């Protein structure tokens, strides 16, 4: 690895005092790309009181961490972050810049790209290098995959969806160089975040749940939806949804899985009354066991799962919930079943 090769950058982030998993997932992938390019990985991390977190970034694969540990960087302020980042880009000239598809990343990435006059792809689910070392930024589209490239302008910038790259194994023997970033002096900002308010999330978080139960249009009504929600509860699973379930008002947009929603990678995914449309299915990356329940034996969902059950969910789901509850209160039946 040589220092004069333009680095691969990762814009890190602090959420609720912690560095979220997505930062590590992206550093892991940046490391792979950088190794192929013989380039260093540099991570930017702004916030206050973040010094003690920096080592974990080296363990994940960073060679250099630009740390902005200052009051001016305490909360995300778009104009301050943008000015600091673009100034640092001029100095370090990254060839690739990866940013998590978080709320901050989704606002900051296009500001950076426009300011630098370069391209930006959105919510990538894979990143590979082509034979010329150009970054192929893959996004789901039209039932398949679309590769976007930025052939001429640099850096090549992409936002990355959550949960699409595995957590890298942390190597505690790795270390690197810390470079300090200072906020721009006395900047007059036109927008200002006054307060950050956290609201307790409802139910289990989808991204980290080992079991996800997702319901679709086949639920048929809010009663049908309620049955699916009860199944999720009985299995201690997070509840996910498809777009029609959100459109019908049975559940919040927060629960939608897929291209325009959340990305999950559970051990077990159970899809109920949904047709397996690609815009939904791309949201379930790397699930170990996939199960579908659908009343149409020809539903395309069955071509994408490991276990299929052809049943009306309005009959099957309540029966399953009942059996699970009986099992809990009657271990004899449980052993009998097993």
């Amino acid at each position, binding site marked *: 690895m040589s220092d004069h090769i333009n680095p691969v950058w990762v814009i890190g982030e602090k959420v609720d005092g912690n560095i979220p998993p997505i930062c590590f997932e992206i550093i892991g992938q940046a490391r792979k790309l950088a190794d192929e390019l013989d380039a260093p990985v540099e991570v930017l991390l702004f916030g206050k009181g973040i010094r003690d977190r920096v080592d974990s970034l080296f363990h994940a694969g960073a060679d250099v961490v630009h740390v902005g540990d200052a009051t001016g960087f305490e909360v995300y302020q778009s104009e301050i972050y943008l000015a600091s980042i673009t100034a640092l880009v001029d100095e370090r000239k990254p060839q690739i810049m990866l940013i998590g598809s978080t*709320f901050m990343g989704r606002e900051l990435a*296009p500001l950076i790209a426009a300011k630098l006059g370069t391209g*930006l792809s*959105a919510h990538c689910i894979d990143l590979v290098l082509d034979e010329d070392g150009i970054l192929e930024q893959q996004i789901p589209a*039209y039932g398949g995959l679309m590769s976007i490239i930025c*052939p001429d302008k640099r850096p090549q910038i992409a936002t990355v969806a959550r949960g699409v790259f595995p957590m890298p194994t942390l190597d505690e023997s790795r270390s690197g160089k810390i470079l300090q970033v200072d906020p721009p002096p006395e900047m007059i900002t036109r927008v*200002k975040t006054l307060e950050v308010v956290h609201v307790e999330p409802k139910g289990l978080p989808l991204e980290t749940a080992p079991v996800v139960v997702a319901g679709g249009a086949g639920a048929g009504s809010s009663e049908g939806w309620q049955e699916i929600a009860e199944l999720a509860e009985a299995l201690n699973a997070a509840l996910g949804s498809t777009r029609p379930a959100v459109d019908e008002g049975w559940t919040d947009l927060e629960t939608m899985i897929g291209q325009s929603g959340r990305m999950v990678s559970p051990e077990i995914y159970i899809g109920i009354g949904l047709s397996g449309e690609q815009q939904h299915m791309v949201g379930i990356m790397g699930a*170990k066991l996939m199960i579908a329940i659908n009343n149409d034996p020809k539903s395309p969902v069955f071509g994408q799962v490991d276990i299929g*059950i052809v049943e009306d969910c309005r009959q099957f789901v309540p029966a399953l919930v009942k059996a699970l509850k009986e099992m809990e209160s009657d271990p004899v039946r449980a052993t009998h079943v097993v």
Partner: protein
Amino acid sequence: MLRIIVCVKAVPESKAAESLKIDPVTKSLPRLDIPLEINPLDRNALEVALQLKEGSGAHITVISMGPPPAGDIVKECLALGADKGILLSDPAFAGADAYATALTLAKAVKKIGEVDVVLCGRASSDGATEWVGPELAVFVDMPIVTMVREFVKTDGKNWVVKADIENGYRLVQAALPTVFTVTQDANTPRTLSFSGIIKSRKKEITTWGLNDLGVLEDSVGLKGSPTIVSKLAYVESKRECEFIDGTLEEKVDQLINKLVEAGVAS
């Protein structure tokens, strides 16, 4: 009076758009004649403007970049209550990515001149990048707040909005002029009656092309786009489905067995 610009996009009608799929053999998209509609989230952006107009008054200009048929979408916005409609249409604009689109819209915003607020939907249903609003903001040198779900204070020159973040929101103060992108939670957009749509077809809109905007041909459309689509690929599932058969009870029992095996139910 408050001067508002709302950016709207004509997108393929959502149900029909789902039939647009990569052909597994040719790895290309079929040519389909899909009807256009207003990008759903742009309706939320327009609704914000319409409510401000009904409140303390505002002049609303709607701009849209697209092929000539997108003019109907602009007309629909007029029928909904916008005051002026401008279609940015020119063969040179075709094939634009988010960057070139934002640049073209920015030229129009500058040509319009005095403006206090620019509103965009959070994302478009077809491109789905979320980039046009923020990139436009950079090109017109305005600040931006994205993912706004509530306009808390809209009097005077310093507005306060609630914008979505992970598990909560941020309260942001913005000194006008500012660009805002709006989420579906901001409001429930009004809809037009069928007769309203018919009437709106007769309303006049302005069309601006390359020369009206005074931009170079290679800074817009496909030529002005830093990104290109290099490949389309069809993805095949590697899973093979084992069907569980039997009566309802048998299926329930067998599924529970599978779940127990996988370590879920116990």
